């Protein structure tokens, strides 16, 4: 390909293939929020420290503020909007509700995506493993204990 400041790309977002023309300097976060109206993923520090922008790229949790949109060309993206299916909440979402894990809620999409990735690679995490797995997701309401309880409860409910 030739160097270009705009590019056509195609990627799968929450199961649906999307094709877009994007500016190459726009991040994946920018494009999801501003072009696809998927505002569930949040912007906070914009430098990979807070985790508010966490989503899954090909199953791995990443900070979408640190990815150019074009880097996601050909990838499968899962955002918080993709956790429920047919209006049914996923086990993590349900557990977060049951355990009161969401206070102001701003960090929660990121926490959910990190938790989703954690349980996918480690279905029976210990408390320490949950803390480690979610250490890149800051919560200023500091609902960490309830978030951890929710992740453990979701793990249990899935494995029952």
């Amino acid at each position, binding site marked *: 390909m030739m160097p270009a400041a705009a590019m056509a790309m195609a990627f799968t977002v929450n199961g649906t293939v999307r094709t877009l023309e994007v500016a190459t300097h726009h991040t994946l976060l920018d494009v999801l929020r501003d072009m696809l109206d998927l505002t569930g993923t949040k912007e906070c520090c914009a*430098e990979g420290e807070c985790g508010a922008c966490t989503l899954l790229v090909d199953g791995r949790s990443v900070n979408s503020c640190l990815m150019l949109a074009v880097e996601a060309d050909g990838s499968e993206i899962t955002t918080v909007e993709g956790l429920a299916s047919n209006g049914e909440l996923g086990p993590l979402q349900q557990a977060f509700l049951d355990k009161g894990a969401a206070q102001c809620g701003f960090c929660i999409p990121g926490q959910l995506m990190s938790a989703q990735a954690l349980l996918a690679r480690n279905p029976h995490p210990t408390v320490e493993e949950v803390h480690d797995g979610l250490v890149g997701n800051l919560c200023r309401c500091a609902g*960490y204990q309830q978030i951890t309880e929710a992740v453990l409860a979701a793990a249990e409910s899935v494995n029952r």
Partner: protein
Amino acid sequence: MSADGAGVSARRVGGHERVTGQQEYLADIRQPHALHVKLVALDVARARIRSIDTTAAEQVPGVSLVMTAADLPQPVPRFGPQFQDRPILAVGETKYHGEPVAAVAAETKDAAEAAARLVVVEHEVLPAVFSVAEALDSESPLVQEPGMRPDDPLAGTNTLREHRFGWGDVDTESADLVVDNSYTFPIVTHFAIEPHGFMAAPDGDGIVIWSAIQHPYLLQKMMAKLLGMPLASVRVLAPDPGGAFGGKQNAKLEPLLAFMALHTGRPVRLILTLEETFQAVRRSSAEITVRTGFVEDGTLAFQDIEANFLIGAYVDIADRVVGKSSYLGCGPYRTPAARILARAILSHTTPSTAFRGFGIPQLTWAREANLDEGAYVLGIDRLELRLRNLVGEGEAFIPDDTPADGDWAQSVRKAAELIKWDSPVPPGRGRGLAIGLKSGPTAALSYSTVRLLADGSGVVYSGTSDMGQGARTIFAQIVAEELGLPLDRISVVMGDTAVVPYDQQTSASRSSVIMGTAVLRACREIQAQLSEMASRLHGIETSQIVVEDGVVRLPDGEVSIVEVLQQGLGPLGGELVGNGEMRKEGDPDHPLGGSAAFFEFNCAATEVEVDQETGETLLHRYVTVSDVGRAMNPIQVVGQDEGAAIMGLGHTLMEHIILDESGRIQNLGAIDYRIPTSNDLPLELISASVENGDGPGPYGIKGIAEGALLATAPAVAGAVREATGAFIRDLPLTPERVWQALQERP
């Protein structure tokens, strides 16, 4: 007792939206024709603005407006909740690192950013003050033009105000021991995960303003005055904040956006970066000297406190923080004589504003650490010393003022029990325990409207801001309790001044009590109307009818509310509307303008281990106990109390904004301003509530959510001291600071 009513850990209203990504925060609101705004600020603290050249910026394609102070009405309007001191854009000079000098509005974010970088501000750095010592030095430059306070004897100084409180005579009160120390509390910033964001759009002859503001009606009032519009023409839409903690109480950039919207005739949208947010809000730092006089049995003889709070370049609500908190500086103790002098001192720094705790964490740090020192010297157990001096329920601790509104010793004993205070301390560890006290609102006004719709579902309107503390849920639960409705049949409408009746503000942990009472009263009006209906339908006197628990009780049986409603409404249908008002008048004779509606009392205790080679502190166990009156929603109370405790651990162990010699913030951003993560939790974090139903709110509620932040620092420092012998008087207790103190140990 309703299934979702008082005391139930009902599912959070708005929880579903938060776990699905559907919750609309300000930055998520679609405003397709909005111009994007980018601020221009200097990378210096104080500078004289020589000239601003906007030519290059204006030529960037897509730029609609590059606004400077010259484009605003002259003299440039000023605003602020206490003093109208803050100009909409910097006038003549910038007074703090990050003060906006200009603002660009453009069709795209990229264009706005590019243009902002092209604005050339010729400036000259000026000498400035960034510390208490510098600010108080008579040779130092003044932050505020003296002409702004014409009749104020302090006008030629950087001391904005001196607050003096006290009783008895500290100088003649005899004491067997006087402990005299100085303590410091750092500059910290709110760091809500949602950066600040604002929008404004012309609306006919009026204006619509979007802001995740905690006080929508105060903003409405301020904007109406600034713009010369009737209140009815100013609409404030206030989405739930993604965290606020006081940093979103008062206007910051809404006035600027409003003028930009009116100037361009278009909606305008500004989302701050996290760095800009750090530059916009912070907590007052403080240097506090405490002289505590003790009798040899540990009882207090006097407390003599001098607190210098370093506030920012504009007052915002910081002076109120200083006054309101220092009034309670002596804490909930029997203090025969007291002298408190607290200064709000201006500096060329970010305007400090309200922040969870409202000045109490700073004072509590100093006072409680000093009590510990007294206990050590006297050889009295630190828990025992506190219990000896703690006032009992109904006992005044400030003469002629609201007495203790709870059995506070109960919270202290509970905390002591949970930390196992009486058991031997494991080798290498230490324990600390401290008490915090804060007053709720001193004057308050809230209205609420509740509608009971024809199918028995309900709508409650409340002007409170739900920033995570769960206000929506509380109000829905009150309606659930009073009208017997399940929570999923109750809608809560908030955040729109055009639709929701007046609420003064969301602060001081007031909303469950004050707005809660308004909601309760609105429900009572509906109950009265239902009683009337039942009376009409059944031919019984209303005095013989009771409406409670979702039913209408008649002498010969009970009928569901819904049934009475539907029969009563008849074929035309309709609804019942109830209005409630809760008003607590101020008291002009009271030093704070009013007595406290309630108190937040908290006891914090912790057991720590210190790595004495590196200074790293490990919290084995942390306990927080709050006197809550009644836990309206226990799971929410736990979330708030644990959250407050962890936030307190932030300023205790790791948070401080670092300024360089020229007042620039060095650790601007998330990489070098560290807040607690999931790996920074105490190994065990235990929160408990004492519920005696003795609060003034519905069902005996008291306000909560600030209490557990108040005494974190002295509890931890006290534990570090027991573990190491090092008496540290400056926060945060970073590993380096603790290590330094250990080196200096005799």
